């Protein structure tokens, strides 16, 4: 009875086992491919491969700015604050949910558990950078970022009428890795990687970080990198760049970093991998290698840049100026050799070399060239300067001057008359032809175009007084009035004289300079050059000690209307006079001294360094 019944009962059992085995066979053998794909979807991870943004070098290959490899410590709050429970005795996280508190710690047998707290990370404290924020502070800062993102996300969802429950949003955002500490020391990284269980929730992540290694001397011109604005993010997003990358992306925000962005930009690589439960990579499914940015050799010379910056700083201090700028370029091809800007307060962050200033007497060079080209100036014709004329005075002793003397002694009335003689119809277009009134195309986003007033401008700007008066034209003739010029434009004007009449486009990238187009006849340029030599040998610049380098130049002192005590002190020129190798412009803002005296030492320091090499 028993045995028969037992066998009878075994029949359905064996049948069920058979069905079960068949089912397993069909899943694991027949449908294996399908389930394999499903599994791949779940265990697929995308690993980021950081890429290096292009470096910016000086003309001899020295690094101005580069991406430096660093290790960051990141934190995932869901793992180390909110949900992870730790053994109270050995402090290792055992990842038990709160409900399982009555279990024993697998490592030390402790029975007490509590949520992770900053005290668990006490082992890291000795390795934190001295003098920096405490661990608590770092954590707080990272958590503040989390809170801010939660607020933003909730607000965004509300705006779109989406479900915006704070708890849901928090839960998702808690999983995001946040940077706790940038550029961790090797000791800290070692401590973290030796006992990962202990510091569960903290990770070491590689990152490239932008460093301006050449320091202050180039910081303004190199500029800064920073995260994208929302509009830029959308623009890149529409180009198909993954959002995960866009969020992290840093682009040039100012200076060369911005101007050369397209060439410097790198594209992060990614690797689609399948990992097992231990996190080991089993298979690489797809690989998109990182693309580093292009390394760009700029035309700047770091030693010159340093010398000039230092000299400018000294000059600013000596004359109590609020800032100053210096630009030097190769008159043959327009390559910028040095472009420096220093300043106090707000001017410290501005690049004064590409921002406008009142040019003062240096602009007489343009008036002279314009007159010679238009034929309204006869270089040999003399003019007797004595006493004010239409309210225009001169600082030189009274006497008779021709063009050479007018430039070397900086006669205001001569050029006021010259401008009046040619008329605004000749003067303004000629200034525009020589690059005034518009940006020179240096790839610096901050660059301004300056201003050359013309009747059209006057009409627009002053509707109540829409006529450009002859008085204003006279002022412009010797660099006054509403004229605004950037030091780069001024240096380029000097290059035109220096190279015999060609307008070279200033460039900051080595090898991209060009010969430029002829804008002034060689004869006119020669005549002005001769006069500029006289400025240094016998004129307003004779006391600057520039004779040793055979400089040809022009001083300038623009009085500020608001405060006659302060001047814009200019000195622009080129050297050596007979075969110019460098053209430059230097100016200091709001100095008490006459132009040449303030700007002279900077030029001298520059030329010493330039010719020493």
């Amino acid at each position, binding site marked *: 009875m028993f045995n028969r019944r037992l066998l009878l009962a075994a029949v359905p059992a064996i049948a069920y086992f058979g069905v079960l085995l068949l089912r397993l066979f069909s899943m694991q053998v027949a449908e294996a491919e399908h*389930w394999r794909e*499903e*599994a791949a979807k*779940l265990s697929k991870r995308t690993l980021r491969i950081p890429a290096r943004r292009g470096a910016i070098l000086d003309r001899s290959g020295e690094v101005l700015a580069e991406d430096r490899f660093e290790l960051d410590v990141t934190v995932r709050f869901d793992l180390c604050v909110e949900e992870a429970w730790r053994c109270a005795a050995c402090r290792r996280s055992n990842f038990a949910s709160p409900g399982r508190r009555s279990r024993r710690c697998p490592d030390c047998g402790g029975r007490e558990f509590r949520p992770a707290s900053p005290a668990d990370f006490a082992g890291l404290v000795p390795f934190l950078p001295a003098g920096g924020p405490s661990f608590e502070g770092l954590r707080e800062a990272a958590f503040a970022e989390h809170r801010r993102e939660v607020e933003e996300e909730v607000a965004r969802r509300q705006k779109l009428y989406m479900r915006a429950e704070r708890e849901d949003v928090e839960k998702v955002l808690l999983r995001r890795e946040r940077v706790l500490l940038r550029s961790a020391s090797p000791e800290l990284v070692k401590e973290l990687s030796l006992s990962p269980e202990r510091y569960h929730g903290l990770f070491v992540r590689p990152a490239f970080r932008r460093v301006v290694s050449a320091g202050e001397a180039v910081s303004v011109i190199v500029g800064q990198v920073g995260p994208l604005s929302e509009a830029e993010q959308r623009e890149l997003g529409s180009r198909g760049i993954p959002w995960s990358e866009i969020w992290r992306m840093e682009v040039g925000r100012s200076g060369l970093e911005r101007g050369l962005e397209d060439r410097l930009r790198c594209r992060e690589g990614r690797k689609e991998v399948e990992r097992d439960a231990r996190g080991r990579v089993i298979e690489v499914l797809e690989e998109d290698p990182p693309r580093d940015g292009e390394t760009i050799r700029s035309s700047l010379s770091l030693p010159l840049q340093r010398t000039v910056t230092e000299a400018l700083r000294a000059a600013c201090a000596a004359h109590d100026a609020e800032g100053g700028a210096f630009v030097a370029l190769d008159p043959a091809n327009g390559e910028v050799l040095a472009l420096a800007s220093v300043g106090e307060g707000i001017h410290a962050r501005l690049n004064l070399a590409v921002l406008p200033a009142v040019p003062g007497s240096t602009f007489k060079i343009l008036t002279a060239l314009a007159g010679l080209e238009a034929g309204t100036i006869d270089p040999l014709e003399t003019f007797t300067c004595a006493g004010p004329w239409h309210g225009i005075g001169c600082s030189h002793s009274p006497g008779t001057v021709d063009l050479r003397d007018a430039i070397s002694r900086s006669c205001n009335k001569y050029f006021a008359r010259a401008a009046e003689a040619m008329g605004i119809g000749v003067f303004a277009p000629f200034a525009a032809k020589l690059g005034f009134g518009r940006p020179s195309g240096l790839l610096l986003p901050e660059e301004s175009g300056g201003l050359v007033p013309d009747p059209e401008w006057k009409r627009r700007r002053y509707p109540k007084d829409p006529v450009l008066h002859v008085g204003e034209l006279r002022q412009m003739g010797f660099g006054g009035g509403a004229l605004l010029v950037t030091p780069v434009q001024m240096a380029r004007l000097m290059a035109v004289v220096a190279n015999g009449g060609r307008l070279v486009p200033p460039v900051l990238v080595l090898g991209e300079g060009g010969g430029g187009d002829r804008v002034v006849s060689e004869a006119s340029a020669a005549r002005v050059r001769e006069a500029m030599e006289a400025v240094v040998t016998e004129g307003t610049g004779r006391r600057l000690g520039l004779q040793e380098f055979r400089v040809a130049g022009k001083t300038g002192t623009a009085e500020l209307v608001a405060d006659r005590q302060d001047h814009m002190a200019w000195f622009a020129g080129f050297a050596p006079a007979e075969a110019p190798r460098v053209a430059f412009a230097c100016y200091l803002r709001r100095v008490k001294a006459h132009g040449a005296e303030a700007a002279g030492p900077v030029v001298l320091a520059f030329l010493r360094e330039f010719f020493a090499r």
Partner: protein
Amino acid sequence: MNGNRGIHWRRLDRKILVLLLLFTALSLLFLHSAGYDSSTGSFRPFWKKQLGWAVVSFLMLLLLQRVSYRSVLDHAYVIYGAGLLLLVAVRLFGTTLNNAKRWLDLGFMLLQPSEFMKVFVVLTLARYIRWREDTRQLRGLLRPFLLTLAPMALIVAQPDLGTALLFIPVLFVMLFVAGARAHHLGLVALMGILCLPLLYFGFMKDYQKKRVLVFLGQEQMSDREKRNEGYHLDRSKIAVGSGGLAGRGLGAGDQRVPENETDFIFTVIAEEWGFMGTVVVFVLYMALFLFLAAIAVEAKDSAGKLLVAGILALLFVQTAVNIGMTVGLAPITGLTLPFLSYGGSSLLSCFLCVGLALNVRLHPPYVFKRDL
């Protein structure tokens, strides 16, 4: 009664002991794998604790052989009563995990009395039915049912429907083997099925109802629910299916079903060893059940036969339901896989089951005049 006189230790079934060692090795191997979790990057050393439990269980099994199953059966009602008391104690002082009050905190372990109650009920039923003839009558089935329903009610209240429902097939198999008429059992089953709506509307929680409906194909899950309710099944199917023929290699699996160390340990084996591993597991279980059935067939007394039959039913149903649920052939219940799942109570109770079966073979049977 008659102590150890007449024991022939050679009769200890060594094939089964070897099988148990193989089971233990397999269990430790895959509990080691199951300890890894890439989402948190952590490792939980399940295998170490399980090794400890395996050693304890093995010793208990051997210790059990010194006492005859007859004296165990003689005390079956006492043991049954103690089991009921433990279940009541759980009700009163139990520890709550995952919304269920199933455990007693003994300090060194969390004891799950319902795991042992399964064995106790088999013992009690074997004791009660052993030489009764009234199982042939409908009325005679009443008391065995009452004996089973009492602990069931306590376990359902924990709640632990899966374990509770396990008692039903065990009871039916034992009654059937004892000689109950099939149409009587059919009648009782029919009555039980008629009572199901009562269970459904009276006791089940919403999530349990949903599971039943989904299992019966009466209801589809929304995407959201799929993520929550069907999540286990989906993940478990993917893990099993993706193992393929040969598996992904020991320790190379990545599909982690929650609770894969306890209820879903089969998914880890199936993923890492593939269909080959499945076959290994099936062969081990078939061999075990075959050897146990042989003991039942060879047993000289009805009590021994009933006891081994009940144990066989208990282990088989657990195995069948556990593996079935990983591929969607059985509803997902909290049943462990005998000998392989992580957990001290479960492992010990399974070893005790096998120990009792070995005991039946080892010790001389009851001798009664009537049998002579």
